[in-house]
């Protein structure tokens, strides 16, 4: 084993910067629709609808292009309760992360449910989006709440 160490100097280190990510055709349409409070999925070759829209099929890697409007309501397929949110997380008060399957979509996606209390959360519950006042075209423009 190693010899005992004497106390090392420590210093706070804050890492912060902003990536500017180019969106491309499909994601540009997806985020532009979000800014307009609409949800766009994309149809796969087997007819099912993938949400969020993606440029390619994650299983077959085929390019995808047929955008389909889904939602805005949906159901929670699984969830966790975050009792002590961190500074960076979307809400300052306790909330749920959940996988939400929007009506008309075949795949659930990760998002936030502002349910007020853990007892309001249940797998299978219906949720609807609540947008911020001025959506900018980003995934955190909205949260879900019990419908």
């Amino acid at each position, binding site marked *: 084993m190693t010899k005992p160490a004497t106390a090392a*100097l420590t210093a706070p280190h804050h890492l912060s910067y902003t990536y500017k990510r180019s*969106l491309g055709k499909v994601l*540009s349409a997806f985020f532009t629709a979000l800014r307009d409070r609409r949800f766009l999925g994309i149809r796969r070759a087997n007819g099912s609808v993938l949400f969020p829209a993606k440029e390619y099929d994650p299983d077959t890697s085929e390019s995808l292009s047929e955008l389909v409007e889904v939602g805005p309501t949906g159901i929670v397929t699984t969830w966790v309760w975050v009792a002590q949110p961190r500074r960076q997380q979307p809400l300052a008060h306790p909330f749920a992360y959940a996988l939400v399957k929007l009506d008309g979509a075949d795949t659930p996606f990760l998002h936030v449910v502002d349910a007020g209390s853990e007892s309001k959360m249940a797998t299978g519950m219906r949720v609807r989006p609540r947008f911020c006042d001025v959506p900018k075209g980003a995934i955190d423009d909205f949260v879900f709440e019990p419908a």
Partner: protein
Amino acid sequence: MSAKEEQASGPVMVLSCPISLDYAYSAGQSASRFLRAIAEGKLLGQRCPVDGRVYFPSRGSCPMHGVTFGDDAVELSDKGTIVTFSIVRVPSQNIALPLPYITVNVLLDGADTILIHVLDAKLEDVHMGMRVQAVWKPREEWTTSTANILYFRPIDEPDAKYETYKEHI
């Protein structure tokens, strides 16, 4: 239409993704000793047990041989020789000199590795082999930081012979 209004109605082309993380960084054993010494105005190097080279600053092991340094530290002079240099004309942070300034690789007397720092001198005067010395902040401002040395400045000593530093270019 202003750029902002256009952004609000045209397609969203770019997504801004801010990253923000907090760390409590630990300097570790070797760098802590080095930094505590520099708070006292001392420059500590460490000697490789395999070939005797003196590393400054040291991270605790010899990067050539992969062996741990012993506890013996080598105190170095704050005088040295310019091994190579460059003139900088683009702004940077935390530099004590105005633009344009000279960035230098200094071989401190007694060390076998170079220290990258800045030089306060006329641009036309700087040259390889030039003898220089550290200019420190006022003593009451010293902390456990390499920023205790503001910059290097030429001293009135004959140039070092090329053979004494050619290995470090």
